[in-house]
């Protein structure tokens, strides 16, 4: 079969990214311009600032991705672009840019779901991984437990009822004075703390055994901090971070392993920004080894928002014949499996 090389573009949140990917699994280039420093002083992503930065940087990022891959537009077979979910103003920059390049070159356009991208990030470094498997997608905006039935075929069996896992990390980090982004900072501080020091709750959602809820946990942490303050006790921030993180990880691991067993799969993968959390990886590695489940995870560079994963997902949509028109719009609330 002929090689398929795609240019992929991602601008759904605060990373402006472009990549060139061959046959969905071989990354020829992966360029990410991260805006994190810009948003840090606001304690989170400011959509208007993010959108402005995307417009400013997008051509440089694309040109760099083409140069790094040693290709020109004429060597490509298509353009893949994230069209949702995400911040609408941010998404529109990548979508408008990708459509214009598609129009000017005649290359086919493939609109890609951001979460599908995160899941497909696992294909890049695990050449043997093929569906079906269960995938946990956890990031600042998403917490989904997904059954990957086939390429491009997904069933969401669990989702968060309130805060996303990464969101809970950000909020707790702010409460203990660590700042944004919370995930990496809590991960780091946790290494100095005792994860069993404070008994934070592990929330179960009654109606759906696979759903998550993190707002109760977040409140428990805030209550604990308030309690300490009122009693005049000094807070051991490392213990709070470690105990909170353990509570999140316990729930993610329990739900995920339960799903893998119930669906009788032997493969499990994680994806999304939270998937680069070192303690989370370790917990899954140990548990999957004990249960005889093969565990897959992307390198941190493919966990964060990036375009290589969009190129991976775009490839499988491309070979299925999916094509988007020049009227492709950004869909901020796009559901997985919808077009």
């Amino acid at each position, binding site marked *: 079969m002929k090689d398929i090389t795609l240019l992929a573009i991602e601008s759904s949140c605060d990373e402006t990214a472009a990549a060139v990917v061959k046959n969905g699994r071989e990354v020829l280039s992966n360029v990410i311009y991260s805006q994190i420093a810009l948003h840090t002083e606001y304690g989170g992503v400011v959509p208007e600032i993010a959108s402005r930065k995307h417009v400013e940087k997008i051509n440089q990022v694309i040109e760099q991705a083409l140069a790094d891959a040693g290709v020109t537009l004429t060597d490509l077979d298509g353009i893949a672009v994230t069209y949702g979910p995400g911040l609408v103003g941010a998404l529109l920059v990548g979508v*408008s840019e990708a*459509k*214009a390049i598609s129009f*000017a070159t005649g290359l086919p356009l493939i609109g890609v779901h951001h979460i599908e991208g995160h899941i497909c990030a696992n294909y890049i470094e695990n050449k043997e991984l093929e569906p079906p498997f269960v995938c946990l997608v956890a990031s600042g905006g998403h917490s989904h437990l997904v059954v990957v039935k086939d390429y491009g075929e997904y069933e969401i069996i669990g989702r968060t009822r309130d805060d996303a896992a990464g969101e809970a990390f950000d909020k707790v980090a702010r409460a203990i004075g660590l700042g944004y982004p919370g995930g990496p900072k809590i991960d780091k501080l946790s290494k100095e703390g005792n994860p069993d020091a404070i008994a934070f709750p592990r929330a179960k959602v009654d109606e759906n055994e696979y759903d998550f809820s993190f707002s109760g946990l977040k409140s428990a942490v805030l209550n604990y901090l308030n309690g300490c303050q009122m009693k005049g006790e000094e807070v051991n921030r490392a213990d709070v971070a470690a105990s909170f993180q353990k509570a999140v990880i316990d729930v993610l691991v329990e739900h995920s392993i339960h799903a893998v067993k119930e669906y009788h799969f032997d493969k499990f993968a994680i994806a999304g920004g939270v998937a680069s959390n070192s303690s989370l990886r370790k917990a899954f590695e140990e548990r999957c080894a004990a249960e005889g489940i093969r565990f897959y995870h992307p390198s941190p560079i493919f966990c964060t928002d990036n375009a290589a994963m969009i190129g991976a997902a775009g490839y499988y949509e491309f070979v299925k014949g999916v094509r988007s028109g020049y*009227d492709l719009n950004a869909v901020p609330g796009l559901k997985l499996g919808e077009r």
Partner: protein
Amino acid sequence: MKILGIDSSGLVASVAVTNDGVLLGEYTTNYKKTHSQTLLPMLDELKKMIELDLSTLDAIAICAGPGSFTGLRIGSATAKGLGLALDKPLIEVPTLEGLAYNLCGSNALVCPIMDARRNQVYTAVYEFEEEPDGSLEFKALPREVLAQTAMDIHELLSQLEKLNRKVVFLGDGVPVFSEVIRKECSVPFSFAPAHVNAQRAASIAALGEIYYSQGKTVSAAAHQPTYLRKSQAEREKEERSAQSV
């Protein structure tokens, strides 16, 4: 010289192609649909209709702001994508100058106003001078009497009073502020009619020809819109730090 003009800065989505002073085609809509869904299909339609070979374009003229933040970015990212893929430069035409050029040759002052919310308008004031060499062709840009800015509508009206000349208003700010203007404008005024009172890519492309002949182009990579306003988060942060000083 073949120029593609694009304007999606306001309620209107518009694309046009000019070639050496001739408008080959223009497609303008003012309808509910989002620019993201209309702009490129319109350009595709226009391209087919006039059998445009994109590689023959000399430059892409983009309405560069101010305007709707999202609208500007849809136009800018489209122009940047075209510029990148076709390896063509961009021409940044200020939104209000583009609007004013709809009324090129007017004896009155031309005052485009765009609704900028918070009781403000994006506005500027232009006049059209006769060509200094006495020729009958317009080769010069509109002369800026008031540079484009965001200001209170009342403030604008008092500035116009000082200029003490007849003025024509146009732009999507007219229906929003026509009551205020009728009540408070002390100089003779009129409102531009339907075919010239909103953004038109033909004006962007025609101005683009002048800019291009003056060598005023930018690379597709360097272009970004002029918003004339910071994001709300930045404004609030500045207010907070101003209070704390």
